[in-house]
C-alpha cells in the first residue's frame, strides 16, 4: 500500500548515475533503500499483486469470462450447493462450508471486505490525525495543549467498547435512513459505514501525536524560519515546507495502522458486530471455522484458509511497514 509506484520500476537496475550527479530528495533516497530491503519490498510487492487480484476477483464469476477459467475460480460466495463440507478438491479449491458455499470465494470476498475496512480506516486516521497533529504542533502554545488534551481524553476511552456501543446503537437508525434516502440496496452497508467511522475515530489519535511531534521539531528548523522571514503565509509553510517532511513517518505509520484496523474489524466480526451474514469478513470466517474444531472430526480447511489469509495479510503489511521505517530512518547510513 505504501508503494504508489507500479512494480515494473523494481525490475530496472537502480539509476546509480543519477545519484552521483544530483543530490537526491529524501523521498527518493528512502525509496531506493526500501527497494533494497528484501523482505519488506517483496511483501509490499505481494500485497500490491493481491490487491490487484482481489480487485479483479468479482469479474471471474462473470459469464463472459467464467468459461475460460478453471471451475474453482468462478464460484460466487452466496451460491448454495449440495456439496456440504467438501474438502479441498478440483471443484472447490479451498473446500466448502455447511451450506455448500465455496470457501475460496468466501475467503476472497472476506479479504476484500477486510482490506477495504483497513484502507478506509487508515485513510480516516491519516486525514484527521495529520490535520489535527499538524495544526497543534504548528500553532503551539495554549491551542496545542488544548488539542492534545482532547487526544488524551479520547485515549482514555476504551476503543473497543466505544465501537461496540456505536454499532449497537446506530445500526438500526442508520440502516433505516440509508434505505429511506438511497433505496433498498444500501441496507447492508450501514454496518460497514459504522465500522469505518468507529475504527477511523479511534485510530487517528496516535497519528496525531506522531505528526505533532514531528511538526514541533520541524518548525524550529532553519528552512522554516527562512521562509517565514521571506513572508510566506502559515498555510504555505505548513503545506510546502513542513508536511512534505512528515509524509515519510506518516506512510510508515499507515502500514502499521491498516493491520491493527483489520484486526479490530476481525475481532468485531468475531463478536457478531461487524459485517452481517451472508457476507463475511476474514474474522467472521475464522469464527465460523473455530466451531468445527473437535476431537472426532475436524473440517480443517474452514479455519486454515481464512486464518492463513489473515495471517498472510497482516504479516505482509507489517513487513513492508518495517521495511519502510528502515528506509525512512536508516540506523546506519549506508549510502
Amino acid at each position, binding site marked *: 500500500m505504501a508503494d504508489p509506484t507500479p512494480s515494473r520500476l523494481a525490475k530496472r537496475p537502480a539509476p546509480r548515475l543519477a545519484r552521483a550527479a544530483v543530490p537526491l530528495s529524501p523521498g527518493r533516497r528512502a525509496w531506493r533503500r526500501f527497494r533494497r530491503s528484501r523482505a519488506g519490498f517483496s511483501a509490499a510487492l505481494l500485497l500490491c499483486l493481491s490487491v490487484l487480484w482481489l480487485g479483479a476477483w468479482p469479474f471471474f464469476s462473470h459469464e463472459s469470462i467464467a468459461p475460460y477459467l478453471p471451475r474453482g475460480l468462478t464460484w460466487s460466495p452466496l451460491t448454495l450447493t449440495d456439496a*456440504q463440507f467438501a474438502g479441498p478438491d478440483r471443484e472447490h479449491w479451498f473446500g466448502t462450508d455447511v451450506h455448500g458455499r465455496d470457501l475460496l470465494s468466501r475467503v476472497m470476498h472476506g479479504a476484500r471486505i477486510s482490506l477495504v475496512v483497513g484502507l478506509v480506516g487508515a485513510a480516516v486516521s491519516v486525514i484527521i490525525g495529520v490535520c489535527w497533529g499538524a495544526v497543534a504542533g504548528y500553532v503551539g502554545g495554549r491551542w496545542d495543549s488544548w488539542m492534545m488534551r482532547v487526544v488524551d481524553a479520547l485515549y482514555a476511552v476504551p476503543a473497543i467498547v466505544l465501537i461496540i456501543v456505536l454499532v449497537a446503537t446506530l445500526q438500526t437508525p442508520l440502516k433505516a435512513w440509508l434505505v429511506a434516502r438511497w433505496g433498498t440496496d444500501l441496507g447492508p452497508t450501514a454496518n460497514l459505514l459504522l465500522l469505518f467511522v468507529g475504527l477511523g475515530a479511534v485510530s487517528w489519535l496516535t497519528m496525531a501525536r506522531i505528526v505533532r511531534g514531528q511538526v514541533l521539531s520541524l518548525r524550529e528548523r532553519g528552512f522554516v524560519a527562512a521562509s517565514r522571514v521571506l513572508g510566506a503565509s502559515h498555510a504555505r509553510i505548513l503545506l510546502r515546507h513542513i508536511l512534505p517532511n512528515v509524509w515519510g513517518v506518516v506512510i510508515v505509520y499507515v502500514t502499521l495502522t491498516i493491520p491493527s484496523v483489520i484486526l479490530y474489524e476481525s475481532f468485531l466480526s468475531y463478536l*457478531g458486530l461487524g459485517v452481517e*451474514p*451472508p457476507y463475511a469478513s476474514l474474522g467472521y470466517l475464522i469464527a465460523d471455522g473455530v*466451531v468445527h474444531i*473437535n*476431537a*472426532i*472430526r475436524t*473440517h480443517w480447511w474452514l479455519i486454515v484458509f481464512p486464518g492463513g489469509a489473515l495471517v498472510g495479510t497482516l504479516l505482509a503489511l507489517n513487513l513492508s511497514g518495517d521495511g519502510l521505517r528502515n528506509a525512512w530512518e536508516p540506523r546506519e547510513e549506508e549510502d
Partner: protein
Amino acid sequence: MRRPDSPERTLPTRPAGACQRPRGGGLFRTAALGIAAALALLGCGSSPPSADLVILNGAEPESLDPAIMTAQADLRIGGSLFEGLTRFDPVDGNPVPGLAERWEISEDGRVYLFHLRPQAVWSTGGSITADDFVYSWRRVLDPATGSEYAGILFYLEHAEAYHLGQIADPGQIGVRTAATHRLEVRLRDPTPFFLDLCALPTLAVVPRDAIERHGDRWLLKPPVPVSGAYELVTWRINDRIRLSRNPRYWEAARTRNQVVDLLPCISASTALNLYETKAVDIVWDKNLVPVDLLDLLLARPDFHAYPVLGTYFLRFNVTRPPFNDARVRRAFAMAIDKQRIVTRITRGGEQVAHSYTPPGIGGYRNPEGLSRQPEVARQLLAEAGFPGGTGFPRFEYLFDTSSRLQEQIAVELQVMWQRELGVRSELRKMEWKTYLVAQGELDYDVCRSSWMGDYNDPNTFLDMFMSHNGNNRTGWQEPRYDQLMRQANAQVDPLRREQLLQQAETILIREAVPIVPLYFYTGLEYYDPDRIEGIYPNIRAEHPLRVIARKPALP
C-alpha cells in the same frame, strides 16, 4: 413456555481464582490466596464418594423451587425432589397416579376429587395432606411468588382473577380441602389434559413449614423436606447437585439407585469428552450434542434420537405489508425446502413439519398443512401483485444468537426465497433477550421461533395463537379461530373436540398462515444401553431418575 435453545439459563461462570483484574500487590495476594485454596482442597483430600449414576444435566439450574423453575434442566431435578398428584410414566410419559392414589371426575369434566395416599409422608416426617396441596397451589398463583408458570393453573376457577389481583381472597380459587386426604378441584372448563398438568413440577406439593421459616432460602437450609423420590444432599454451584434416595418416599422400595450426581455443563464438546472418558454415564440435554458430528454420532448405538413435543417455526408480522396479505405468506411457506434444512443443517433426524402440532400429541391427528410447491408459490405471489418478486419491498428475517443453527437456517431461507420467489431479504441478528422484546413488540417482518409443549395436548400449541394470548406475537387476530378454540375446550366429547381443534389448526397452517412450521424437534441423549437401563424414549423427554440404573456387571 419452555423455549429450547434459551441461553438465559446459563449462569455466568467464573473459574475459581479469576478475580477482578488485580492491580500491583493485589496480584500476589490473589495468587497466594489461590494457592492456599488449592492446598486446602488438596488437604481435605477426600473427594466425595462416587455416585451410582452421574448425569450431565445441561445449564446450571436457576432455581430448584418448583414454583419458580422454568428451564428443562431445572424441571428434571425438581421433578425428582417434589411430586404432585400425578407423575409421569417412565415409559410413555403419560400421567399416572402419584401422591394421589385415585381420583373421581364429575360428569361435566369440571370437578376432580383426588384421594391422596394416606401413607405418603415428607422426608422429614409428617403426613402430606390436602392442605399442603392447597397451600402449594395458592403459592404458585400468588403474584408475590413471581412464578412464570402460574398460567398453567388458570384452568382453575377464579385462579386467573386471583393472580391478576382482581380478587384478594385465595379461598375463592377452585381448589379446597374436602378431608385430610381428599382434595377437591373445580375447573373453569372441562380440561382433558388437567391430569397432565398435575404431573408438572410446578404443581408439586412443597413444604409449608420450611418455606414459611426460611423464606426464599428454604432450599439452602438442610434438611429440605421433600415429597419426591430423592432428597437434596448438596448443591454446589457449577460443580454438582447430589441427590440421594428418599427412604420415606411412598414407593421407596422401587427406587433403583442410592446416590445420583447431576453435573451442570453448557459446552457440547466438554460433554462429549466427559462421556467418552466415562466420567459421566448419561448426557441428556439436546444442547450438549455437537451438531456438526451428528452424522457420525447418530450411527453409534449409544446415541438416542427420538421425536419430542417441540416445533421450530417462522412467525410473520401480519400487521406489516406485504405480509398482511395471506397470499404472500402462503407463497413464502410453499417456497421453503424444509427437507434440505433438516438433512443438511439440523441433522438430528428431525422430522419435517407440515402441521404446527407435533405428531402423536395427546392422540390427536394433525391436519395436513402446506407442502413445498414452488410453482403455486410463484403464482400466489403474482396474484398478490409481485410477479417474479418485482416490486417486493425489502424485508428482514430476524433471528437470535442463541445457537449457530439459527443463522445457518436464516442463510438457507434467504437463498430459497430469493431463488424461488425472486424476493430479497436481509438477515437481522439479535441477542436472545432483545430478540424476545422485538418479537413481543412486533418489531420484525419475519422471524424464527420455537415452542416446546408443556403438556401432552394440542391445546398447548394451539391456544397461543388466539387473538389476545401473550404468546401470539404475530398480530394475527381471527375471530373464527378463537371461536373454534373456545368451543373445543368446552367440549367433553373427545372426538368432537379433536375435529374442532383440527379445523382451528387448518386455519392456522393452511389458510391464514401467520406461521410456517419448519420441523419438529428431536430429543437427543447419549448413554451406553449395555450399561444403563431405565431410560425410555417418549415425546415428553421425561426420564424419571428413580427407574434409571446401571446394569449389574455380567459375571
